[in-house]
């Protein structure tokens, strides 16, 4: 009898915890979103953005440059290279 009660209590506690977690997640979601507003970036921010995006893309591409260097230094399959 006591064992069965323990089982039910465990199940109820688990369900309660899941419920609390879901409620907290829902409240967080509902509290957050401002509406996106398009076309309001200042001119300086817009031109700076284009530059930042390009620079960062090329900085991230440095990994591919280093891998090409590694390839140039490695022995390659016969006739595989240019």
């Amino acid at each position: 009898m006591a064992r069965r009660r323990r089982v039910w209590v465990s199940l109820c506690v688990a369900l309660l915890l899941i419920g609390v977690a879901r409620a907290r997640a829902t409240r967080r979601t509902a509290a957050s979103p401002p509406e996106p507003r398009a076309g309001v970036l200042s001119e300086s921010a817009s031109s700076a953005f284009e530059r930042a995006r390009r620079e960062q893309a090329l900085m991230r591409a440095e990994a591919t440059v280093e891998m090409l260097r590694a390839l140039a230094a490695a022995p390659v399959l016969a006739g595989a290279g240019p």
Partner: protein
Amino acid sequence: MRLGAERAALAFVLLLALSLVGVPFILRPRDMAAVRGVVLDGRGFGVPEVAVFLFDVERRQLLEETRTEARGDFAFHLSSRDVRVFVRPPEASGFLPAWGPAHEDGVGRQALVLQPARGLELAVRGPDGQPLAGAEVCVYERRVEAVALDLARTGADGRAHLLAPARADVRVREPRSGLARWRFDLEVPVEGGELVLDLPTGRRVRGVVRGPEGPLAGAWISAEADSESTWSDFATSAGDGGFELCLGLGPATLRVLDPTAAHLPLARRLATAELAESSLALELERATPLVVRIARNGLPLAARVWSWSGASEAWSFGARTDVAGRARVPVGARYGLRAEPLDPAFAPLELWDVDHAAGTLHLEASPRR
């Protein structure tokens, strides 16, 4: 008897929970971690006998190499967590080299479509106007993400031949000083093109990046010389926060970004006298990381997200969303934001002059008009 039924019910609930969260990972076949794919030409036909290389991205090491089979298929049985495929067809084939998707995008079988190559003759001259031998020249392609496609060194005549796409970015770097010069959005004609790049006189600039807690490792520093009004060079700060850049003469603007989103970006204009100092100190302010979730009809959408810091007038490091569509960007009390879905069918999202509020910022993408 009743207790047995309850146990069975509990076991069922447990199995149900496992099937929802864990079983797909537990029972995932080991072979799914292997890298396989196909190399195709523009018409969709498999390209045989093309050299395919597998790299460990974190270590920047070549792991394995193979060739495509008769129908253009390839497979690597060596699996690693963070790998990337590079395909290099013979130059006589007329195709450009190509990179497979980055690990975060490279789920399942990869299909690499080869684009036609265009020839690019580069001539590099040093500050004295003479041909510069041994300079490293690199051709980049910028589509969804930028990649380096071809790399070479100039010969004794200061010239190098590279393969390029129709629209390319080019960098030349002098090996001893590290001085670099860029040419962006270069249009390369079908019949091939020529480009002359003159390297200016350069000087080394050293500095340290610090946050409120002390030296900051892994920060990205980029420099733009005022006189050239173009990007000069970039570096990453070392474990002690130190970095070294090679700049042209004259004032410059330095931008510092923290990819961990823990600090606000910094843009600082430096006069010639400051650049001549033995070591520059660049101090970053602590930021509040903001979690942004990009979705379409509730489903996560792959995107890159930047935040704008009005105080320093600089954009943050562009953070890539994870599998749940979430990215972290650094913000202050008020911020601007721009998110660009990687799928060009969706329009960029912008927010401007927003008060910071706790919690996740949810943005819903809409199709581009």
